[in-house]
């Protein structure tokens, strides 16, 4: 196994700006290493290394054409990584926004109260 967890490899691969740029380019269609290297101030072998990382993460595959071996995006691996982020993020965002509103209410309740504020941790032991 290349990585303890396939998704770790995906996230690690996406952490690098050059690799993200390569992915962005490939969303427009397949491209050869030479074509991918063009916009970057980088040697072809350096770009090849980045592509290898993307390949190992399952984000990119190489075509059979012996000469060009075009790179193409593997949308499934990408969707796995991005959908989870979106899904979890949306859930927590929604929850925490509700919590923000609740905390505002709790702060407002506490503010005008002249009576001694109640402590929170009733019944809590270490």
């Amino acid at each position, binding site marked *: 196994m290349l990585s303890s967890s396939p998704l770790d490899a995906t996230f690690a691969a996406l952490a690098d700006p050059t690799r993200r740029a390569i992915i962005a380019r490939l969303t427009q269609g397949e491209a050869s290493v030479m074509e991918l290297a063009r916009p970057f101030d980088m040697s072809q072998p350096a770009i090849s290394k980045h592509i290898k990382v993307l390949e190992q993460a399952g984000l990119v595959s190489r075509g059979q054409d012996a000469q060009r071996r075009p790179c193409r995006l593997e949308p499934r691996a990408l*969707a796995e990584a991005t959908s989870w982020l979106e899904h979890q993020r949306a859930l927590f965002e929604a929850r925490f926004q509700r919590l923000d509103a609740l905390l505002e209410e709790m702060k407002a309740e506490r503010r005008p109260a002249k009576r001694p504020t109640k402590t929170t941790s009733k019944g809590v032991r270490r």
Partner: protein
Amino acid sequence: MSRNPLKLGPQGDRDVVVERSFDAPRDLVFEAFTKPELVKRWMLGPDGWSMPVCTIDLRPGGKGRYEWTSDSGGPGMTLNSTFKEIIAPERIVHTERFEPDWTQGDTIVTTTFTEKDGKTIVRMTITYPTAEGRDMVLKSGMEQGMARGYERLDDILKR
């Protein structure tokens, strides 16, 4: 009111970390996380879900139970937890398991509350029993994700 940014992502093989700051003192935030009548008001799913049952016995070995139902009458969801460590209002360690279980065993959740300049940073580290279990959870939103295709990619690439 502008929202505080949410940090969320995998860490190592088995963890998922969620971090967010709240504009409130720590004791209030801790209360909102541990008092059932307060938890019921925010720890919900998407719109249309409610939490009719929430019980929390906040002491080491104590149990928590959270039951969600959907207005549409579809199947609900239950989460059972056992508290392992409580340092109010700083830290809670608990295990949790969904009914039906889809994470291959108990997950361990460590929640820390750190107060700084009147704000509270909440950091939850969710540790899955296995790397496979975590990744299964990570992939649980896949169906939805496939449908929306590349739109979402833009956000990731911009980060």
